[in-house]
Structure formats: structure tokens, C-alpha cells
């Protein structure tokens, strides 16, 4: 029996963003489908709708022409839609079998028989009585897959399944997926890795800004054509900047940056080397989760790595903490503005005091100089056009854009020589984005440098002088942005090479 899944005119609008805009797609069993797109393209929302986590504002989902009204994950399970999320939902301290038996409807004996059948059939080697915490990421994923298979699914959705896998595990996964497909399970494979799409999938739907922009057979596609579709034709770069002369001195130099982590959800960084010139903006592109978090924390001094050399204005700063780095006139704007860059429960002036730079006199002889902090905060609020002048306001009442302006203002008021920012406009409205882009360009024009780590290719092409791409913890060669096309970026971000 064939399975036919049809998504019809599905829309989902979140405040300030259209996550899915009238999406219609059709899937038939016997094929593996790829759903491709950048961060924020709307893949995750669509998947959440299919798995019942989110209800669409408009539109319907049909399975074999039956209208599914998915209002909870349970509904999706009942309708034989299985889902393997990027982050595993397993109890680490329970054994594999205990994890599988939690939501099983049969008794343990018959469950064990069926699990063993599945293990045998697909050649999975997993010890059922071992605690999950002893398994590798690939094995944990297999447990999740077995959990889906136990319900004999008609549809299996895999969300970025290879992000935590090794090459070997990826290959094994692909073999299993092809087997499932041959047995008539409809497979939807969500990814941003272009090569995987080409090697595994039969058909590919590309999403961009909530819309499906193309559906095609993968045999007609190449890495470059897919990249182009994924990233899209970006606006031509607006040349607002004073050109950097080639022989400006390098004020920031990173050598041998390596980072190794035991946590499978962190990315290891492998031998990054780069430098930033005075007045330059170095863009670091990449799909999120490829090491940007780790890179930002190492550059800001939150993580200290041995053997790394970071030279800033001719001084070695690799062993200094963020506060000490600030004293050398560096500034940092992290991605997570709500729980890292600022504390929502603190008042605006208290959040300003977090950047307690040397000449600020915020804390004289260890005592709080509230008057000084408040004066200073008032100046930031007006200089960076934050829409309040009440420094006693808790920052949780600021909108995202205003909070980001406050944070940038706090970081820039010291006139830093280098600002490192990570997704500075993430989730903001157009007005705030423009304001922040103008601010970043202004800094460069004042001969100050910036490092812009961003998942937004449009932003990178607009602001950067040179761009490198980070993929799986490795940095591509650094290219002058005149030579960079959206297509090239897309290929590199998807793990391809361009030479």
C-alpha cells in the first residue's frame, strides 16, 4: 500500500514573522524527500506542524486523502507519523529497553521480541540493557528510530539527523533510511547539508523565508544550483563604506585556535587562523551549530583554550577573561541577548553596569556609584535611540530591537577598537535591523574593526569586507567580499568546496 502525504496551503504566523507562508507540498512513499533551507526558512515550523507540536493558522494536512487534524504529538503518533528530533528525547540513566517500554502499549516480553526483530532486520547492534548514557550519539539516534519503527510508521521525519553523527554513522544511517524507503515508509529528511541531499534523496523541496521556492528531482541538481536556491538572489551589496586600504595594520590575530569538547552537542574547533585589519569587518558565515557559539565564547574569553594565541593590538590576550579583554578595548555582543547579554530581571542601569570598563568609575573602591551608572545609562538610551528614558525600567520590558540597541550602546560607549558580534539582528524587525547595520558600518568608518559572526548571509554580504565560512568547526579560506557570491557562500555553508 502506498502512502500519500499532502500539505495544503499551510500558513503559520508568529508575532513579527511569517514562519510558513501558504506552503503546499506532496509526498509519496517509495521516495526520500529532502526539505532544504537556511536557519529560519520555516523548515522546523513545518515539521512541528506535521508532528502535531504546533497547529497551523491555515491549511490542512492530508494522509491518504484523510484530513488529519493534528492537535498534539499524540495525534501524529496515532496517524503513524514518526519523528526523530535533532535533540534526543531519551532518559539517560534508564536502559535502552526501559526507554523503549515507556510509551509502549504491549507487555515487556512481546516488546522485547519485536525490538529484537527490528535489530536483526536492520542490522542494528545495540545492547538493550545498557543505560542510554553509555551509547554514542549514533546509537542513541538508532534507539529513537527503533521507537518510531515499533509503531510501524507510514511517515518518518528526520530533523537534521547527521548533525551529531560521525561520517561512519552517517553512512550507516543512510543505508537504513534507504531500507525503510524500500519497505514503503515515506521519508522526509530535513537538512541544510547539500551533499547529503544529493547523495540520499530523490526529490528536494527548498524553503526560503517561509515559502517553498522550488521542488525538483535531485538528479537534475548540483551543489551550486541547490545553494543558489537555498540562499537566494541577495540584494546587491550596498557600498556605503570607505574603502579599506590594503596595507592597514592587523589589530587582531588568532593563531592555532583549537577547541575540544566531550559534549556531543558542542562543536569542536579545528585549527582556526585569521586576522582582522583596522577598520575592517570580518564576516564569519555558517549555518548555526557549526561552531559559532564556541568561537564567540573563545574570542570573548568566556572559554580559555590552551595553546591558542590571540594577539590584540600587539598584546597576547588569549589567557584573559572577558572583563580584562574589555580593558584592552574589545567589546562583545552575544547572540543570546535575553539571557546572556542582559538579565531581564535587572533594571536598565544595572544591565549597563555589566560593562564595568576601567574608566567608567561605576564602582569606586568597590562601592556602587549609582549616580554615575544612571547618568551613563541615560546617555546610552538617548545616543542609541532606545524608546525609553527610564533607566529604572526592568530590561524585560524592552522589545528585542530596543534591548539590542541598549546592549550595542553599552558595548560601544567605551569606543572599543574591536567589536565582536554574533547574530546581532536575529529576530528583529526591519527598522531595528537597519539601525543596527548602520551602526556597525559607522564603527568601521571610524577606523574601528568588527567581527560579525552571523547566520544571515544577506547581512554578511552587506556589511563584511572579507568573509569566511565556518563548517563543522573548520574555517574556509577568507575571501574578499567582492569575490563572494551568495552561491559560493551557500556551497561552503552546505559543506561543499568551491575550487
Amino acid at each position, binding site marked *: 500500500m502506498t502512502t500519500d502525504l499532502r500539505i495544503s496551503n499551510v500558513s503559520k504566523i508568529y508575532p513579527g514573522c511569517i514562519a510558513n507562508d501558504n506552503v503546499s507540498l506532496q509526498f509519496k512513499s517509495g521516495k526520500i524527500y529532502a526539505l532544504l533551507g537556511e536557519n529560519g526558512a520555516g523548515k522546523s515550523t513545518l515539521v512541528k506542524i506535521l508532528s502535531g507540536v504546533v497547529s497551523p493558522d491555515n491549511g490542512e494536512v492530508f494522509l491518504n486523502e484523510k484530513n488529519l487534524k493534528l492537535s498534539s504529538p499524540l*495525534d501524529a503518533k496515532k496517524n503513524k507519523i514518526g519523528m526523530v528530533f535533532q535533540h534526543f528525547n531519551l532518559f539517560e540513566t534508564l536502559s535502552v529497553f526501559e526507554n523503549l517500554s515507556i510509551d509502549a502499549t504491549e507487555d515487556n516480553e512481546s516488546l522485547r521480541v519485536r525490538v529484537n526483530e527490528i535489530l536483526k532486520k536492520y542490522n542494528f547492534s545495540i545492547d538493550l540493557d545498557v543505560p542510554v548514557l553509555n551509547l554514542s550519539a549514533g546509537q542513541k539516534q538508532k534507539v529513537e528510530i527503533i521507537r518510531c519503527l515499533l509503531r510501524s510508521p507510514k511517515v518518518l521525519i528526520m530533523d537534521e539527523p547527521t548533525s551529531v553523527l560521525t561520517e561512519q554513522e552517517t553512512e550507516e544511517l543512510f543505508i537504513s533510511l534507504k531500507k525503510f524507503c524500500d519497505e514503503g515508509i515515506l521519508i522526509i529528511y530535513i537538512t541544510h547539508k547539500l551533499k547529503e541531499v544529493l547523495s540520499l534523496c530523490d526529490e528536494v523541496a527548498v524553503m526560503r523565508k517561509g515559502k517553498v521556492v522550488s521542488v525538483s528531482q535531485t538528479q537534475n541538481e548540483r551543489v551550486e544550483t541547490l545553494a543558489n536556491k537555498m540562499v537566494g538572489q541577495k540584494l546587491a551589496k550596498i557600498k556605503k563604506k570607505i574603502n579599506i586600504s590594503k596595507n592597514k595594520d592587523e589589530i587582531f590575530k588568532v593563531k592555532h585556535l583549537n577547541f575540544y569538547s566531550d559534549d556531543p552537542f558542542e562543536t569542536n574547533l579545528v585549527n582556526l587562523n585569521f586576522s582582522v585589519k583596522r577598520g575592517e569587518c570580518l564576516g564569519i558565515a555558517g549555518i548555526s551549530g557549526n561552531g559559532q557559539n564556541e568561537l564567540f565564547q573563545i574570542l570573548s574569553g568566556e572559554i580559555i583554550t590552551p595553546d591558542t594565541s590571540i594577539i590584540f593590538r600587539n598584546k597576547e590576550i588569549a589567557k584573559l577573561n572577558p572583563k*580584562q579583554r574589555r580593558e584592552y578595548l574589545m567589546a562583545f555582543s552575544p547572540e543570546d541577548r535575553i*539571557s546572556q547579554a542582559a538579565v531581564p530581571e535587572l533594571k536598565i542601569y544595572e544591565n549597563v*553596569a*555589566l560593562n564595568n570598563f576601567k574608566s567608567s568609575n561605576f*564602582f569606586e573602591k568597590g*562601592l*556602587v556609584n549609582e549616580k554615575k551608572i544612571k547618568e551613563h545609562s541615560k546617555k546610552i538610551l538617548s545616543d542609541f535611540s532606545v524608546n525609553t528614558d527610564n533607566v529604572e525600567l526592568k530590561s524585560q520590558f524592552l522589545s528585542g530591537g530596543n534591548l539590542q540597541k541598549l546592549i550595542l550602546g553599552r558595548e560601544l560607549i567605551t569606543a572599543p577598537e574591536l567589536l565582536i558580534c554574533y547574530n546581532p539582528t536575529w529576530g528583529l524587525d526591519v527598522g531595528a535591523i537597519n539601525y543596527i547595520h548602520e551602526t556597525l558600518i559607522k564603527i568601521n568608518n571610524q577606523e574601528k574593526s568588527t567581527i560579525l559572526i552571523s547566520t544571515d548571509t544577506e547581512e554578511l554580504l552587506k556589511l563584511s569586507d572579507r568573509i569566511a565560512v565556518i563548517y563543522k568547526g573548520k574555517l574556509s579560506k577568507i575571501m574578499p567580499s567582492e569575490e563572494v557570491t551568495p552561491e559560493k557562500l551557500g556551497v561552503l555553508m552546505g559543506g561543499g568546496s568551491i575550487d
Partner: protein
Amino acid sequence: MIKIEKRNDVPMALYFFTPFIAIILTILGGGIIFYILGFNPIEALKFYFITPISNLYGFSELLLKATPLCLIAIGLSFCFKSNNWNIGAEGQLTFGAIVGGGVALLFYNQEGFYILPLVIVAGAIGGMIFALIPAILKTYFNTNEILVSLMLVYVSKLLLDYLVVGPWSNPEGFNFPETRQFSDSSRMPLLFEGLRIHAGIFLALAAVMLSWFILYKTYLGFQIKVSGLSLKTAKYAGFKGKTMILVVFMISGACAGLAGVGEITGPIGQLHRMISPDYGFTAIIVAFLGRLNPFGIIFASLVVALTYLGAETAQIFLQIPKYTGQVFQGMILFFLLASDYLLFFKVKILNLKKNELRH
């Protein structure tokens, strides 16, 4: 179906009001327990909460019991505010008392104005050193401070036990497990003739003022506040996380050590096995009931001290064990946590029928 959601905006006024709700609920709960036990609840509650402080002596006893609770809770507030869970104040109190008491015993046959300050300082240092153990293990070996500080309580109590029956026991004491009496110069001056309330209360009040100043007016206080709200932000701002852990534990240990010394140089006057009716543990309740606010802690220490006194009165007049005091302390914490939960989260009862229709 029940759904629990976080409330977006919790009014500050209500945040400071819920401890009162918890106290009222505790009294109601206590009344119900008394009723079930066959007592007239009004009568029993009167013995519990009013009789003990109906005369001057009772009131001085209230202050006497509130003093160590307040001191320890003030110290704990530094730890708790910065996300460090020091559960071992009882151990720090005991070790402070051992070190302070040791100094007092050195001078057992001497008099001099300098002795009491020496004893007090020794007690504070003792508590501080004992609190440094979990702090150092946490910062350098990533151990869990809850477990380490808790286990050290038993270490200190056994050490005290060993000392009072062994090397420090009173040679003229007929093998009772106690040391010599301290000399008068090692004793806290009494404030009033005939009452047990002593100068230790000024130490507690000084701690309140000082802690208010540190927490709200200094860079250290600011760092403690930020770390408590978001460790990620503290890291990003470049606060010296390790140093701060050591400092808050030292403050906390010193306060507990002072409380221990206050007890042995105040009402007790020597070292023996039972120097504290678990003040160190009860002070955890005091700290939270007082919202980790220095002035809130004064109020909370008085309320909780009353449960100690009430339990003693109830034992005398109603012949019920004084351990009911712990029941009341437990109820206070329970009702406080429960009302906090309802304060920060709202419980929605979803209409099941509507959901079922959809299927």
C-alpha cells in the same frame, strides 16, 4: 487536563507578601493538627504562639533564639543569592563553636577584656575555614556543594563529640560529656539582670546592616546578584566566578561560626554535645522566609524562633513532644514554596470535553 504556565510579570508587592500567607496557612495547618490530636485548636495555638511571649522573660527568650537564626540566615543569603547551595551551616556553627570554645578553654582560669573578642574572632574564623572546604572542592574539583557541606555537618558534630568526651572533657566533671565552664571574661555580657538575652544580638544586628550594605551598595553585591540571576551573564561580564564562590562561602561560614560562639559564650557557657537545636538547618527556612533580604530575615528569624519557644511551652502544658516545633518549621517552608509556586506559575485547567470533541 491541567496545564502549568509561567507568569510573565510577578508584582514585587505580592512577592514580599506571600511569606505572610505562608505563616497564616501554617497556623491554620497547625490548628488542624491539634484538632486531630484531640486538643482544642484555639487553646493549643494560644499556648504555642501567644503564651511564650506574654511576659518579658519570654520575649527575651524569643530574641535569644532569633539571634543565631538571624546571623546564620544572613550569611546563607549571600550563598543562596549567588546560586551556591550551602546546606552545612550547622557544621560551620559547630566548628566555629569548637574553635571559639577552644580559645575560651585556654583562658578558663584567666580574666581580661581581650578574651571575649579573641574567642569571637576565633569562632568566626573557625566557621569560615569549615565553609571553605566545600567552596574549594566546588571551585577546583567541581564537587557538589550541597552534598559536601551537608556531610561535613556530621564530621563536625562527631569531632565535637570526641572532644567533649575525650581530650577537652572537664577533669573535675565526673566523666560527663562536657568541658570546663568558661571564665566570666569569655562570656557574652548579659543585657538585663535576670534575662538570658546577651550582647550577641548586636552582632546579629551588625550583620544585618553590613549585609544590606554589601548586597546593595558594593560591586561584590552586584556580582552576587547577577550571578544568582544568570550564571551565563556573569561569565560574559567576566566576573571572577571562583573568587566569588570562595567569598560567599567565607561570609556564610563566618556568620554561622559567630552564631555558634554566641551560643556557647552566651546561654551555655561551656562546650557539650547539644550546643544547637539545629539552628543551622532551621536558618535555611529563615533565609527563604525572609526572601534573602536582610530586613526580611530579622522578621523571619523572630517568627521561626517562636516555633522553638511554642514547642517548649506546648510540651509543658499540653504534654506533646517539643519536636512539633520542627513540624511547624516544615509547614512554613512547605507553604512558602507552595505559594511561591503559585506566584510564579499559573495553573490552567483545560476543558477536556472541548478537546475530546476534536478527535
